[in-house]
């Protein structure tokens, strides 16, 4: 049917083939575009539908600013820790040589672990470090050390420890290609010109890897900033970070009268993630210049 349209219209622009995309585009319109637009529009609407800047102004309230600050702190610290440890791990497995089974196995396992997060990861750390956790009990009975403390696992510090678990594997996945792209010839060239190992790293490898490293760090930041499930399971009281603040805006009655605050908070998340991802794309383009 669509084919007839093409034949009938000759070289003119044919609409027919585009119609076949309608089911897919319609689906995305309803389940992706409409929700996103709802958030953006809702952030500037008052309860009765009129235009207001009140919701956005409410983002400046102490509670909201505190949550955003803690979110940034959490994302930044886990991104930095994850980036350095991940880069170290990916360097270690690359030195094993291309035929190493351990190297390939590590990469596969990292592919799995980077997808962790959510409920299962939270439970894994609860089973390890909570008051009845395996490590808590073991350390207590061996050397009388109390690592549970006053329940740090269920606050910001706990989130940092747990998030690092999926940040390191993600770093390994995104950073290994860049590290692999460092050609041995460059090192040989540097050594031929009289460079020491330290000079090679400082003046050749690090400058080359910096954009890729920073780009990966930004990706890790966005990954932690957007994460919700892990935090939602671990932290059941209070709302220390923005995603949990959104949860309470959605579910609790306390914030009644500010029904659209949830939209404004969600808009804040879109803006932060979009800025970070734009920078990431920029750095990625710089890396692409010397990689293959």
């Amino acid at each position, binding site marked *: 049917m*669509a084919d007839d349209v093409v034949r009938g219209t000759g070289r003119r622009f044919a609409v027919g*083939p*585009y119609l*076949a*995309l309608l*089911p*897919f585009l319609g*689906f*995305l319109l*309803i*389940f*992706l575009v*409409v*929700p*996103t*637009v*709802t958030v953006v529009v*809702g952030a500037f609407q008052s309860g009765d539908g009129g235009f207001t800047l009140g919701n956005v102004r409410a983002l400046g309230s102490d509670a909201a600013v505190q949550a955003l600050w803690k979110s940034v702190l959490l994302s930044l610290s886990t991104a930095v820790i994850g980036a350095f*440890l991940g880069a170290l*791990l990916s360097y*270690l*497995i690359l*030195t094993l040589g291309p035929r190493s089974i351990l190297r390939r196995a590590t*990469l*596969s*396992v990292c*592919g*799995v672990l980077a*997808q*962790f997060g*959510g*409920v*299962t*990861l939270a*439970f*894994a*750390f609860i*089973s*390890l470090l909570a008051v*009845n*956790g*395996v*490590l808590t009990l073991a350390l207590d009975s061996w050397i009388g050390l109390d690592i549970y403390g006053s329940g740090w696992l269920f606050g910001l510090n706990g989130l940092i420890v747990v998030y690092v*678990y999926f940040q390191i*594997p993600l770093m390994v996945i995104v950073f290994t290609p860049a590290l692999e792209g460092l050609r*041995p010839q460059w090192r040989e060239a540097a050594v031929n010109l009289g460079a020491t190992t330290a000079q090679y790293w400082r003046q050749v490898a690090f400058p080359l890897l910096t954009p890729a490293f920073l780009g990966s760090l930004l990706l890790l930041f966005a990954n932690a*900033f*957007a994460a*919700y*499930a892990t935090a*939602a*399971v671990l932290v059941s009281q209070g709302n220390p970070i923005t*995603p949990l603040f959104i949860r309470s805006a*959605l*579910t609790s009655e306390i914030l009644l009268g500010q029904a659209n605050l949830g*939209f404004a908070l*969600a808009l804040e998340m*879109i803006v932060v*993630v979009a800025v970070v*991802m734009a920078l990431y794309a920029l750095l990625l383009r710089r890396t692409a210049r010397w990689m293959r």
Partner: protein
Amino acid sequence: MNPSRGFRVLRGVLLTLFAVYFVLPLLSMLDFSTRGRRGETGRNWDAWRALVENEDLRQAIISSLLLALFTVVLMVVLLVPTMIWVRLRVPRMSRVIEFLCLLPLTIPALVIVVGIAGVYAWVTYFFGSSPLTLTFAYTVLVLPYSYRAVDSALAAIDVTTLAEAARSLGAGWLIVITRIVFPNIVTGVLSAAFISVALVLGEFTFASLLHFDTMPVALTAISKSDAATAIAGALASIIVISALLLGLSFFGGNTRTRNENG
């Protein structure tokens, strides 16, 4: 380059430390979920048995498995023909489709949940309030990953030539898509299906905030009263998901070697 002995020892130590860090939480789940009740010694598997014996939990697990199935079906029906069609007939739309498919990576799932209430009011109106209605939202969530898998499979074959050959022998477009191109990208579609299942089985954000009882939501609910069962369920889902994702990486590895060789 032959690493010095000192470096190799250091590497061994560091890799062991990484391995301990990553394996310890998983082993502790196994220990925690098979630990006897307070005062008892020895192992017991009560917590694991509860996974199938607890009625709520069993229902939730069945919901999650059905959701995974439906999401894969909807993803394949919507995405695969569209991507083939874009390659064959409307290549100038390929950037638009790519952008739309990768968009859910940039928009956090939580943001979509916040805005989707209105849409889900209609979904409930038409389809009832079964957890299976999450299929629609989950299909959006798995799009970026499925897109990449299918796209690399499509890039590896010469779609245009295949289609032209079939067309010149009299095949209609439906036949071209379902019986000519599809069988050639089946590995890519399988990868897409694997990763979709893995994502759906672990998804929590949508299900909990829209109040549907899927497996992760039910496990969280039960963890308040019976942590061992919740942890057994979490470990079980980790095992299933890991098996799927590791299978996926083997698929990926196989296609890559095949391309290099031929």
